[in-house]
């Protein structure tokens, strides 16, 4: 599609389509009535919610349909072992070519600012952009359905048989390994921060660890204390530089 590059099946060398493609731009139209994404020369005047125009404007084989959107995110979800985001990029940008790399980076940045799992946010933001609330729903359901069935099955098996002989050993070792995995995640997050701004980062990291891990404060209390401190320090660093 013109917004995000060629869809599967449409040739990369198709000059007429490449010519139509525009840099992605979010233009607020009417608050509460959807946003127009991109500026295509052939868009009709704003009369309908923007996503309906987008559905109508580009050639039909270029905008992923609701079904394609659902299948694309289903593919991401079942490929996504140990972190969904690399797979989201591989499938959305490289394989299906629904998004440009910069477009993916900027949408991901939005999802990282907002609370909640980034990949879930990404499905909603991207689906909405293509097909409004239906697109958001299609992408979200595509992302969640298969993993939900798989994890409920695994969880049920664990709860029923997890205490049996060798399975018990397997789950013990698996849990120990998952602990190591998150140790590595913590280190990967903490080490660059400590290298960059040791004076501000170390006290906050240590305080977060002690309050949540050792003193077992409720999370809202931890956030209420540490988030403002983190924000103030970041604001001061910003104005100084």
């Amino acid at each position, binding site marked *: 599609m013109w917004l995000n590059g060629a869809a599967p099946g449409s040739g990369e060398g198709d000059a007429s389509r490449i010519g139509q493609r525009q840099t992605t731009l979010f233009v607020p139209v009417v608050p509460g009535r959807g946003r127009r994404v991109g500026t295509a020369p052939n868009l009709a005047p704003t009369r309908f919610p923007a996503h309906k125009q987008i559905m109508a404007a580009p050639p039909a084989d270029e905008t992923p349909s609701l079904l394609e959107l659902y299948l694309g995110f289903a593919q991401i979800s079942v490929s996504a072992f*140990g972190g969904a985001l690399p797979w989201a990029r591989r499938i959305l940008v490289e394989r299906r070519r629904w998004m440009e790399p910069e477009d993916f980076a900027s949408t991901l940045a939005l999802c990282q600012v907002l609370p909640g799992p980034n990949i879930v946010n990404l499905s909603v933001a991207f689906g909405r952009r293509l097909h409004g609330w239906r697109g958001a729903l299609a992408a979200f359901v595509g*992302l969640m359905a298969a993993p939900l069935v798989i994890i409920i099955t695994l969880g049920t098996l664990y709860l029923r048989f997890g205490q049996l002989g060798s399975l018990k050993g397997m789950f013990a070792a698996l849990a120990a390994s998952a602990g190591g995995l998150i140790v590595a995640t913590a280190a990967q997050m903490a080490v660059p921060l400590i290298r960059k701004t040791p004076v501000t980062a170390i006290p906050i990291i240590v305080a977060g660890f002690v309050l949540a891990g050792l003193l077992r404060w409720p999370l809202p209390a931890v956030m209420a204390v540490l988030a403002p401190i*983190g924000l103030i320090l970041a604001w001061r660093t910003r104005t100084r530089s």
Partner: protein
Amino acid sequence: MKGSILTTLALQCSMLALLAFGGGINTVVPELQRQAVDVHHWMDARTFSDLFAIAQASPGPNMLIVCLVGLKAAGIAGALVATLAACAPTCLLTFVVSGFWDRIRASPWRVVVQTGIAPVAAGLIAASAFLISKAADHAPSLILITLATAAFCYFTKRNPLWALGAAALLGLTGVVS
């Protein structure tokens, strides 16, 4: 009784998801564990670590740990309620905010929020690592598995599933206990 468990699950999971800034579900694992183990006694800490491991080893978003907590607390209904409750508020927020994104992207506050929250998130994830490992490592060989996995994931770019798979095999053969 079950109805009240479902209500509690829904409220807790919604709140947790809305507080999951800067590092996804891993930042709220300490609170999820506190609620599930210490406050509501839905499971012991070891079961929680096992469930966390299953969520890590399964495909899909890691946030599905809430689904397993719901499953243990209140069966299939609990699993679905917990998952939906964790997704609904943040999805709605994303849906609304993604329309204003160009304005937020230009705002200096975006950088401030991202850099300000990062060390808090790192501390919370460190707490998650400590709590999960503490509950899981009840034998010296298991501590070794934790350390080996941490080193593997930190120093190589390989898929962490290799480490989880190797650990599961070791566990199945009974080498560790």
